[in-house]
């Protein structure tokens, strides 16, 4: 018995030593190149790009659809001749819904695979985790999801909405509908708390009243009391920044309490076509969402996108806002590279300003100063078929303003 244990100990020690040795090698490569910045390998007739999404873990539901959408764009571009005569070769890595893993995989894509750009990340936590990696290596990330604003990294292009392209227009819409008393319900983490800070500042400046504010822990599924509070407040509308599973419990409770889209509409900022399916259309019928794109958005570019996506992945798969933003990101990168005539990161960045693309959501333009893109804001209504149809849009693309500098009421928020 003791001999056996001894051998096992030795084995453990050997593994430990090997792990330490490997880690040491890894950090050495990191140090060697961190000063000069990573150089994309464009020697062959292909150019590599990295796809960094959670393919496992809790975020996989959402992020796999983004990865699929990225692959579709790459396939289309390759079929049309590639970028600067080179075919795009995607290297897919799994962030595993774990933020340190995201940073590690980003480093790997840049250092080992020598990719020209990386597309991906979903949660703000994962973006914050990889941000220093891209800045240190002077490499590019395209981030395709709406987020809480107040950020502007020189090595990230943001193709999802910032607050003035989603939350602020949603509040404008509520105000125009005469819904001036609102109740805020959100999950208890950074995005809802930041969003609600902005909402309260907006409300104070625009004659709207926030009657209450409640946060449920992530994953919480008991909403009896919160719905009672919402109901007792007699607010005209609810602004919902809940994430994930909580939405299911919240909307079931909402309906049982006798609240409806007609009596007290709920505006949600994180429920897209995919989520509608998992919450259940009977609970969401007529409720409002705020995004920049819906599967039903009119236009030839969107018809083409939806058709191509369904042909590749199945007729029952809906397309959603973050998927569209990811698809657009690849095309924007291609346009930047072609304008720059080079894959060099600094040249691509310099060429970015003013690049336009006829996206499924309509025409988008890259703003070189903020590295965000102009997007049309859209309020949609969930239909009984599970699709979302637009009830209002901002008319023209809204210029990105991540720090809300153009809004006097927002001074002091950042």
């Amino acid at each position, binding site marked *: 018995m003791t001999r056996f244990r001894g051998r096992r100990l030795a084995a453990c020690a050997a593994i430990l030593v090997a792990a330490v040795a490997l880690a040491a090698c890894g950090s050495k490569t990191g140090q060697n190149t961190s000063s000069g910045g990573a150089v994309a390998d464009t020697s062959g007739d292909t150019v590599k790009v990295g796809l960094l999404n959670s393919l496992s873990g809790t975020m996989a539901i959402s992020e796999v659809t983004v990865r699929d959408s990225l692959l579709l764009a790459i396939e289309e571009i390759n079929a049309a001749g590639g970028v600067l005569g080179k075919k795009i070769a995607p290297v897919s890595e799994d962030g595993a819904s774990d933020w340190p893993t995201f940073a590690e995989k980003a480093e790997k894509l840049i250092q080992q695979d020598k990719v020209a750009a990386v597309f991906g990340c979903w949660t703000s936590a994962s973006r914050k985790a990889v941000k220093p990696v891209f800045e240190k290596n002077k490499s590019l990330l395209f981030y395709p999801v709406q987020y809480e604003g107040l950020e502007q990294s020189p090595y990230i292009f943001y193709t999802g909405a910032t607050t003035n392209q989603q939350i602020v227009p949603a509040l404008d819409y509520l105000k125009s509908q005469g819904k001036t008393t609102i109740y805020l319900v959100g999950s208890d983490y950074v995005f809802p708390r930041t969003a609600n800070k902005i909402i309260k500042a907006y409300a104070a400046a625009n004659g709207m009243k926030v009657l209450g504010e409640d946060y449920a822990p992530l*994953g919480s599924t008991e909403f009896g*009391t919160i719905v*009672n509070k919402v109901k007792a407040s007699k607010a005209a509308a609810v602004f919902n920044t809940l994430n994930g599973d909580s939405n*299911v419990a919240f909307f079931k409770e909402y*309906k049982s309490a006798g609240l409806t889209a007609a009596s007290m509409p709920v505006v949600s900022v994180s429920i897209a076509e995919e989520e509608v399916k998992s*919450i259940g259309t009977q609970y969401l019928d007529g409720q409002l969402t705020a995004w920049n794109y819906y599967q039903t958005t009119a236009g030839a570019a969107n018809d083409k996108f939806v058709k191509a996506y369904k042909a590749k992945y199945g007729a029952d798969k809906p397309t959603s806002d973050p998927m569209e933003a990811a698809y657009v990101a690849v095309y924007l990168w291609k346009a930047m590279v072609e304008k720059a005539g080079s894959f060099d990161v600094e040249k691509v960045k310099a060429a970015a300003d003013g690049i336009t693309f006829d996206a499924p959501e309509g025409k988008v333009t890259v703003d070189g100063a903020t590295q965000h893109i102009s997007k049309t804001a859209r309020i949609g209504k969930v239909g009984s078929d599970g699709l979302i149809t637009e009830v209002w849009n901002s008319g023209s693309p809204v210029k990105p303003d991540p720090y809300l500098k153009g809004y006097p009421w927002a001074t002091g928020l950042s």
Partner: protein
Amino acid sequence: MVILSQLFTGVSIGAVLLLIALGLSLTFGQMNVINMAHGEFIMAGAYTVYVLQQSITDAGLSLLVALPVAFGVTGVLGVILEFLLIRRLYTRPLDTLLVTWGVSLVLQQAARDVFGAPNVQTRAPDLLTGNVHIVGDLVLATNRLFILGLALAAVVVLSGVLRFSSLGRRIRAVVQNRDLAAVSGIPTGRVDRLTFFIGSGVAGVAGVALTLLGPIGPTMGTNIIIDAFLVVVVGGIGHLKGSVIVAFVLGVLQSMIEYSTTVSVAKVGVFIAIVAFLQWRPQGLFTLRTRSLA
């Protein structure tokens, strides 16, 4: 009026707690088996509704059919678990804890592989998505009333079985003194298996009820297992009565604190109350006096 509707919310939270804890009060309370996979049995019950609705289109009927079917499905799951693993570990409670936790992870992954990682949706009959108007602002949600009724019915049936049936007498005999029961000719192994069948089956029924309230997904079990253990521990091991009282007290306490503060504060408040209570009565609300030497 708000107080009344909060009281109802509290009672209905209590009913949910009771349903998820009831099966556990049998397997943990009576048999002393720490079954961490209890939450996954509840999940299996919830998925039963989803599977049945693939073939039975009527939402109300499928829910009614799901109750006995889920009881059977999770009951059998429980018996398999008891027969293959727990039976060998009756004298090693800590190992049981680890093994059943492993089983819960396996079941979660199995659900993910079979039904996919995203939540699935079930249809509820229109009757159970509405509410009953009482007076003024006071409305009682019908799904919550249904769950309350189901929880009470489950308690009545279960305590009836334990008190009056010959199976119940045998279960109590084994709980009070296993060796004496064995020498009196009671097949303790078979009694254990039956107890586990019933306890796990009740978890399945709880799962059916939960489809009316929240999401149905692979991880739904992990969210409720702690609450279930709390109820049984505070209620006193080996007593259904304790679990019933504690479930409703905790439910009302939670909803009342939450109304004037926030969800997190209410959770903390309830935990503090529980810790204080267990300092005063470590054995829980009720204690079981047995002649067992163990």
